[in-house]
């Protein structure tokens, strides 16, 4: 992709880029469709249920049917809602979710954009989704939605900070913000060369903050169904609702891929003698494990309270992530530099 990006923009180039984006969009939609199916199956099995098994073989078409249902549903806009913002919010939630995927590298050669500030780009864009959620909650003119939106704003701001600082250690170790360089810096051959062991503090904080960024259990406060009914998207129906859900699952994809890249060595094999297996397989395995982990904790943990969440974010995660930066920097200064 890189040569394409460096060329001047012509109609031909634009068309090719557009086609790639469309292909990728379908890959992501396919992922979301089966991630939802997978989540429902996994949680179903953990909860003594069978999960979806009626639509198609093994229920494989369940999500397709669900999406189709959402498509043909009536699109309601509350009379007292702010129409323009109400309509913009779902799109605004989805656009950054899809855009961040551009910088994620899958193997040595399979990637879309090779930005040298890839990580920064990811963090900056993903922050925009918060605006969409607050907007959706506000524009609905519903008290529950407003509370959900406000909670989400508070939560995402408090967790964005430790999330960013927790990856500073990784950046220090690899000396680059480019996600491909970060993976390349983990290529020791063995799995202990991956960042999750040397950066275990950063890894733990990153996972906690990432789950919170995703608004998933135990941090699913913006949509806490037992308190706020559905939170910020309570007034949304049909495909607008689907867009919020879609962006949520696209972020699951993005976070799982980012975790793999930053901490789990991307496409590197865990041991030198396993290197005959193609890198994409390793990437997908690690990626799938993170996705499974996110679904797993949903079936395991209760929801944290909103003030405890803030306390955890500002009083625990932030200082610890700063400490991690300090330790990493000190280590590099004392042992590696010379």
């Amino acid at each position: 992709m890189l040569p394409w990006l460096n060329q001047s923009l012509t109609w031909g180039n634009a068309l090719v880029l557009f086609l790639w984006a469309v292909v990728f969009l379908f890959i992501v939609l396919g992922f979301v469709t089966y991630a939802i199916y997978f989540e429902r199956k996994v949680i179903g099995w953990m909860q003594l249920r069978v999960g979806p098994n009626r639509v198609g073989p093994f229920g494989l078409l369940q999500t397709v049917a669900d999406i189709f249902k959402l498509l043909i549903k009536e699109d309601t806009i509350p009379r007292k809602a702010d129409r323009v913002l109400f309509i913009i919010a779902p799109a605004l939630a989805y656009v950054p979710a899809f855009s961040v995927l551009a910088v994620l590298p899958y193997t040595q050669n399979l990637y879309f954009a090779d930005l040298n500030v890839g990580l920064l780009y990811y963090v900056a864009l993903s922050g925009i989704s918060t605006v969409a959620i607050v907007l959706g909650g506000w524009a609905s003119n519903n008290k529950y939605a407003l509370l959900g939106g406000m909670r989400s704003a508070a939560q995402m701001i408090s967790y964005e900070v430790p999330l960013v600082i927790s990856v500073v250690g990784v950046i220090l170790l690899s000396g680059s913000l480019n996600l491909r360089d970060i993976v390349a810096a983990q290529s020791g051959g063995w799995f202990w060369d991956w960042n999750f062991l040397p950066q275990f503090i950063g890894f733990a904080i990153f996972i906690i903050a990432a789950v919170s960024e995703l608004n998933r259990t135990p941090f699913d406060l913006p949509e806490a169904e037992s308190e706020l009914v559905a939170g910020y998207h309570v007034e949304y129906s049909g495909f607008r609702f689907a867009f919020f859900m879609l962006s949520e699952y696209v972020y699951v994809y993005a976070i799982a891929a980012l975790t793999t890249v930053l901490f789990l060595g991307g496409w590197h094999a865990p041991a030198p003698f396993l290197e005959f297996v193609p890198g994409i397989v390793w990437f997908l395995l690690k990626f799938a494990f993170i996705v499974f982990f996110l679904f797993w904790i949903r079936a395991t943990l209760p929801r944290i309270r909103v003030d405890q969440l803030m306390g955890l974010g500002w009083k625990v995660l932030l200082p610890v992530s700063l400490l991690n930066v300090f330790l990493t920097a000190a280590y590099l200064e004392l042992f590696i530099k010379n």
Partner: protein
Amino acid sequence: MIRTEELLLNVGPQHPSTHGVFRIIVKLDGEVITEATPVMGYLHRGTEKIAENLNFTQIIPYTDRMDYVSAMTNNYVLVHAVETMMGLEVPQRAEYLRLIVMEMQRVASHLVWWGTYLLDIGAMSPFLYAFRDREIIIDLFNELCGARLTYNYMRVGGVKWDAPQGWLDKVREFIPYMENKLEEYDRLVSGNEIFLARIRGIGQYDAATAIDYGLSGANLRCTGVDFDIRKAEPYSLYSQFEFDVPLGKNGDCYDRYRIRLEEIRQSLRILKQALASFPDGGETMGKVPRAIRPPAGEVYVRIESPRGEIGCHIVSKGKAEPYRLKFRRPSFVNLQILPKLLVGETMTNLITILGGIDIVVGEVDC
């Protein structure tokens, strides 16, 4: 200075965590509640008034529908009141069956509470585990009396059905199973940091307040007041069996949680003893006159339902129908303390506290 307004938020009657059609109007300052007004009556069916036109056997199915999570104890309080009034003898076998189903009902009821409470707190899986285990009890009841929820099992003077063949053995098998599962529950949930952070010190009150508000059941015992009607005024056969009354210290949601789980253990203990001394033969119905006409007068009896003290006050004029029938419903009385507890709490704690009180709206509204 930015001017801020209080937000008037209507929680319920259609809300996932109000356990039915209960409604609270809360005033919120940010997420902090400054005032809470419970609104009830959405499930009011006028049971007590209807009962004035029914004979006593006909009233029994109505009691099923009050606290529909614990129908057996409701059955019992009515038939027990009538029996007390008329001075009827209940055969041993019938009394044993009653005690066994009441204790099984207590287990089932606390399981529903345990599951839904964790669902309120945001953990979904325990709900399904609890219902798996409750299902066994429900199936046993179904085998006994043909209904899964509204049993209509007890009659004035005895019980309607004798235990089918092999039924008691199934109950015997259930006890060790449930004991195992309780340990699993403890492993899964009771030590969870997030869960403990959510319920420790929440909804706290002291013994004097609890007594002032007329609380009963786990809501009272969590403050350390040792009052369980099964011990304090033994009815049925409770005086023959050994069991402990679990008590709390701090009067918070955590204590209520521990007490309810421990009560399941104690119920299993009672069940074990009752099954061991279960009489071999005997009648399931005592000698009851054809028309049940309690003598003119009044009676108030109370028993320990899973939710607290359930009482039945009958005023009779010597007819087949009661002149006045009044149920003291523990859910309704326990709910009184809610507005006081909610002031100063957050929206999230509202759900924790309401769930901790353990109400059944069918009983609140009656």
